[in-house]
Structure formats: C-alpha cells, structure tokens
C-alpha cells in the first residue's frame, strides 16, 4: 500500500553536528545518547560552528570522530588543562571536554579541580559508568562498594580499596564552579532532563558565568556483564542510591538565567 498524499513530517533526524558514521560503542552503552544530546544542544544554540571539543582517554577517546566540529585529543586526565589552554586563547569559542570517570576523577582529579576552582569558562560532560570501560572493566574511583570488577574480583572492599568519589558533590564546593549537576541516561525521562542540564551548562559558558559540569550516570553492559536492560535497571537500583541525581551547584547568576 502506498499513501502518496499523506504529508510527511520529520520527527527525528541526525543532528548535523553528529558525523554519520557507526560508532565503536557497545550495544546498550549510553555514550551514543550523550554524544547526541551534546550535538543537539550545540545545534539548537547555533554554536556548532563556534565550538572546539576536547576528547579524553577512555571509551570516548574517539569522540572526535563522531562530532562534526573541531576537536583535539588530550592525554589521560588532562582534558581540562588542554581546554583551559584553548579557551584562554580563543575566549569567544565554546569549549567542552568529554571525560569518563577514570579520566576525570582519578588520574585527572588535579586538572578538573584546578579548572573548576579557577572558574574556567568550560563545559565538562562527565560520564560516570562506575568502571574503566576501555581497558576492560577495572575498578574506577566511581566503582560502588562491593561492585565486582576485573581488578576488584571479590567486590570493592572499601577498607582496602577506599570509597567511591562523588564527583559532582566534591566539585560543587568550589567557588569557581557555577553549575554542577548530576543526571542519568537510564530512561527517557532522565535523558530529557540530561539534555536540559547540558543546555544550561553550555548557556553558563556562553554567558561567561563560570565553570559548568554535568555528570551523567551511564551504562556499561559489556563490562558489567549484563544485558542492556539489566544495565539500565542496575543504574536505577544501585547507582542512584550512591549517586543521587540533583543540582549540586547552581550559582545565583545561573539561577537568574531562567532557562
């Protein structure tokens, strides 16, 4: 049956800012969603032709292949420093880093705290999936107590291996940070909220209000040894209790933005 006279309406298409190639991400991984959200937000803000991205080391190491924007690739953990260098010499560009939890909260803790405390006008997209994905699922600073990983085979023992780092809470204590929130990508409602937060974060940068960071709870079905659906449920059941969603820092100037 051919319905020639029914008008078509585009309800879904690939953002121009996303490159039309197949990603290397695993099925059920939420990196693809967060990439898309970033691309949509930049496009809606008309900033695609004014943005430089900084990729990090981790599963998103090749993020630069998936965006139609200028990109640089940082050393492990150093993306906020590299982004600082770019933003300081090109202050009218939108500059963002895209970092995982090992990159940002372990090896790169010095750089992220430095950038946030200086109030660098950067937007950080922070993917928290509770493990080192790229290297095969080792314990990350975000790995939950008791969580089994390839380097905590009997489960993370906080007495021996310490406690997870709650990054959004930690960075929210810094005066240079204007907007620090935690969102999740495990269901549609949260995805929409995540997009809104990313929009706010980039607006914070555009309005030069300070450092902005959106922590996104993400799935890693392959390394967690779960199906995509199980992984989604694990975020809801396990991660949300340790990493509550919420706005950890919204500076008065950001609140006044009224987005």
């Amino acid at each position: 049956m051919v319905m020639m006279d029914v008008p078509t309406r585009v309800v879904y298409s690939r953002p121009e800012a996303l490159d039309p190639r197949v990603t290397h991400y695993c099925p059920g991984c939420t990196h693809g969603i967060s990439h898309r959200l970033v691309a949509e937000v930049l496009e809606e803000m008309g900033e695609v032709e004014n943005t430089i991205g900084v990729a990090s080391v981790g599963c998103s190491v090749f993020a630069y292949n998936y965006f139609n924007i200028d990109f640089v690739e940082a050393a492990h953990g150093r993306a906020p420093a590299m982004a600082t260098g770019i933003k300081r010499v090109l202050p009218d560009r939108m500059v963002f880093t895209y970092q995982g939890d090992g990159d940002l909260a372990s090896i790169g803790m010095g750089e992220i705290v430095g950038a946030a405390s200086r109030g660098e006008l950067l937007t950080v997209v922070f993917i928290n999936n509770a493990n080192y994905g790229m290297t095969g699922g080792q314990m990350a600073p975000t790995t939950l107590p008791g969580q089994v990983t390839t380097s905590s085979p009997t489960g993370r023992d906080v007495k021996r291996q310490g406690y997870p780092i709650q990054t959004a809470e930690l960075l929210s204590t810094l005066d240079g940070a204007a907007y620090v929130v935690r969102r999740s990508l495990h269901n549609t409602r949260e995805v929409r909220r995540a997009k809104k937060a990313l929009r706010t974060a980039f607006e914070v940068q555009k309005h030069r209000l300070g450092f902005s960071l959106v922590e996104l709870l993400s799935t890693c079905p392959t390394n967690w040894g779960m199906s995509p659906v199980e992984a989604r449920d694990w975020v809801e059941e396990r991660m949300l209790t340790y990493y509550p969603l919420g706005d950890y820092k919204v500076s008065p100037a950001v609140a006044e933005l009224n987005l």
Partner: protein
Amino acid sequence: MAKELIKGNTAVAEAALRVGLEAYFGYPITPQTELLEHLSARMPELGRPFVQAESELGAINMVYGAACTGKRVMTSSSSPGVSLMMEGLSYIAGTEVPAVFVDVVRGGPGLGNIAPAQGDYNQIVHGGGHGDYHLIVLAPASVQEAIDLTGLAFDLADKYRSIVCIMLDGSLGQMMEPAEIPPMQPLKAEIPDWAVRGNSDGDRRILTSINLDPPAQERMNYRLMTRWQEIEANEVRFKSYYLDDADFVVVGFGTAGRIALSAVRAAREKGIKIGLLRPITVAPFPNEVLEELTEKVKGFLVVEMNAGQMLEDVRLVVRGRKPVEFFGRMGGVVPFPDEVLTEIERLVAVPLTTNGHPRDRWLARMADVIG
C-alpha cells in the same frame, strides 16, 4: 635601543612576549620563578592570557591545548617540574604542534637543590617522553644570547612544528648582564592551516596524537625523523674560540662553556694551544665541526655541570680516533675556571689514551675532591 642590566629569567620572559608570546602557562619553581612572575604582571597588561596552573602537568597540557590553535605559547620550569612535563612534551611532539618551553636547570636527581646544574641534558636532548621524537634544544651562555635564542625558539617552533627548549642552567636564570631586548613585535596574524579554530565551516580539523594503525604511526614517525634530518642540516649553531691553531679543544655548553672560556684564555696565556667549542644548539648537535676538529687536533676535554651527559654525544662523533677526557661538577656545584685550567694542564702534560671511558678516569680523580 640601549642596553639594560637584566636577569636571565626576566630577559627571556620579556623577550618572549615581545616576539609575540600570546599565552603563558606555568607553575612556580625555583630557580625559574622570576620568569613566571614577570609574565604574571606583563601578560595581563597586554591583555594576553597568563595562567598559573595547578601543576606542571596542568601547565604543559594548557600549552598543548593553546598550541593546537596555532598561537605562540610557552611554559617554563626547572628540572623536577620538567620531569613532570615529559608526558605533555611527547603528546605535543606526537601532534606536531609548535611550542616553546624554558628549563632553568637545577641540581638533581630528586628534589636536589636550587643551584645551577646541567643534569637535564639527557632528559631534554635524548628523551624524557616516550616515542620517537626530538626537541630542538638551545643552550645560551649569556643573557643576550638567551634573549636572541628566545626569538629564534619561536621561529623554529613555527617553522618545523616542533617543540623548542631553551635550556638555561640556573646561574644564567639568576645572573644579570647588560643586554638589549628586541622591540615589541606584532602578534602572529595568520592561523596555520592545521590549527583548530572552532569554526570548521566544512573543513573540520582534528588534532590528536593517536595512531591506532601501526603503519600510520610509522609513517608519522618517519615524517618526524626526516624533518629532524632537515633540522640537523639547517639549524646547527655553535660558537668557537681560538680553534684556528688549537692542538686541544674544550667542549662545553651554557655556563660550563663560558667557565671553560676563562680557563682556555688562562691556558693560552701559558702558551697552551687550546680552543673552545661551545655548542649553542645541543640538539641538533654540532657533529660536523666536531668531525673536522677530530681530524685536526690531539685531544678533547669535555666540561659539563653533570656527570658527562653531552660527553656521550662527543664520543659518538670522535669514535675513539682521538683521546677524549672529561671534567664535570655535579649536583649544583659549579666548577671554577681554575679547576678547568688544572684539567687543561693535565690534558697537555700526561700521555693520553683512547682506551677506557673518560668518565671512569674522571671519577677516579674526583675521589679526593669529593672526599
């Protein structure tokens, strides 16, 4: 323009901004602090970015980012800080972006001390960071030369998309000499065709040091190495003193080179036919002139403020054809000219050998000195 009496660190900082330094990122460490402090005042005056980073790791990676925009950028540090920067240097080399850094070398290893030394030769000239890459390394011996080489450093960095290190020993950073700093020059106007700009306009630019495909990485390494050959062919610089009729030659760079100059003059007064070769670029190394000298002279004395790091580069050229002797002080101890003169007198008085290693003979002689 009239000369002014100026400290090496301050002179390099002021020279850098006058030849178009657009952004500086650094971390405090003695004995390079005046450099950072000078720029902390001057850069904001000129509306140019100055960032005191959270660490040397942060500083070098800020340089990395800013260098990706094609602008003239730099950092400075001293030995322990430079060790931390090795990661960034390898990445910058692997991304082929130009950058300048200043190493005001102090005594080590470890925390060491803040006295002048040349113990960073190996880490700067022969590696530090991972992978196949070379830095252009300039080793001034006076404040004026440091100023002149600062301008050259930025030009060479741009020309070869290379990292250029200005290696000062701590004494040169702290020393004051009359010198002339060039007038203020306009900032570099053109954006290189490889630089990220953020307005890709269909010409998306990606700067990365990743090459997952080994043959692609090999091609890049090949490019880096052939570019280095070009640098070796075109950019060697050195200064020679009294070499025309010299039977013996002292080789020394930076402050060790100028200390040796005093000793060479004193030896000349005593009728010893000795000259001095002072490499200005220690990378690329002045192999050719050393080769010519090897054919002409009776022997060499290498003088350094380390345990004989450049010595190995001299030995690579001389290849046992002529005797090479070594004298050095280490760990922040600076040799006096009379110590070098004693070594010169020994060089011409005792039977020399091409057997064994000059470092072993030197260590044996030093046993009494060190005590």
